[in-house]
């Protein structure tokens, strides 16, 4: 009996703790899961993101994203007005901006990209929407290229100050 109650209390405590954590997470700009940082779908970021780990973006970002040596995934809910530079870039959402991939760039079937892509290898899945240019060089050694001038001139109005809003 005692043990049962104790277990029940522990269970409730764990549940409450879990609820709090979940609530806290939705209010944060990002959450780190297994070595990957996720920017949630309610997050709006204006500015430059520099990351030393993999990024999953489901929110809205205007500015630049740089993750040298890492992977950037723009999820299906992700909407970017941003230039992206990373080792591997995977687009499942909507991107307006230039993309530089040190190793490869993948636009999945749900992806929609307007901009210029530069990477040794580029894969466009059936159903992907793309308008712009693709520069490829299969002999090029994988390298991370800097985002040109920090920001694409596609979006001259994008804010330069780093600002994060979680709505």
């Amino acid at each position, binding site marked *: 009996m005692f043990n049962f109650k104790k277990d029940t209390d522990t269970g409730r405590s764990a549940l409450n703790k879990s609820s709090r954590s979940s609530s806290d997470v939705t209010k944060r700009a990002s959450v780190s899961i297994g070595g990957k940082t996720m920017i949630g779908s309610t997050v709006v970021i204006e500015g430059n993101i520099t990351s030393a780990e993999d990024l999953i973006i489901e929110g809205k970002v205007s500015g630049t994203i740089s993750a040298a040596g890492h992977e950037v995934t723009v999820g299906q809910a992700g909407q970017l007005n941003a230039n992206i530079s990373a080792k591997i870039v995977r687009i499942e959402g909507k991107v307006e901006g230039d993309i530089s991939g040190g190793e490869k760039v993948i636009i999945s079937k749900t992806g929609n990209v307007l901009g210029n892509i530069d990477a040794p290898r580029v894969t*466009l899945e059936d159903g992907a*929407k793309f308008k712009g240019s693709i520069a490829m060089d299969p002999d090029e050694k994988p390298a991370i290229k800097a985002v040109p001038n920090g920001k694409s001139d596609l979006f001259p109005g994008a804010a330069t100050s780093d600002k994060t809003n979680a709505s």
Partner: protein
Amino acid sequence: MFRAKVEKVAGATATSQDYALCTMLHSNLAAATFDSLQPDKQLIVLDVGLAMAATVDFFSQFKCKLLFVDLYAEDFVTDISEDISHQELVSLFRQSLNIPDNCTIDICLFWDFFNYLDGTLIKAFIEALQPYVGEHTRGFGLGALNSRCQLPNSCYGLMAKDTLTQCPRSDEQRPVFPHSQRDLKDYLDYFEINKSRLMSDGRVEYLITRCNDSVRVKKPIF
């Protein structure tokens, strides 16, 4: 640097269901567009249609730059206005192409674009393209055998040098202006139809090359 228009994110395309209906077409002439390429030079390819997975996959073996513009969807192409002047049309095409200065295209994938343009629009498009066309620029096109032939509402990709992929477009069929080879030859100005081959379904494929000036002056002036 090639700069895509901001206001128009890649629009009408083939849907996932449409891709299940894609077919392969054998081409006798597409391979000839690669004949005059210089090794080690970055290959510049203009594709006036939708960006297709097959085309990107095929060209991934080359050091290249692919320019995808999908001119088929441009308003001034779909809603033809009689009030617009030739020079305005040239300017609109040049804006849509948005090709960087000093860029010389090696291969133009015209697909069946000319069939969606009347003679006036073809001439404006050809003039808009001229600054980016070099002596060795080659083009590939698809046409109707004669003006009675209809063309499917399709988008195309290059799967291999001798194989095309054809997928249905999800948007509405636009008005078609099938041109005979003779008419098309006259509209192309500094280009000429170097070779043409009848395809199995009654369509014609064209290898388009730059013509020399002596041939060009013999063409009728409209």
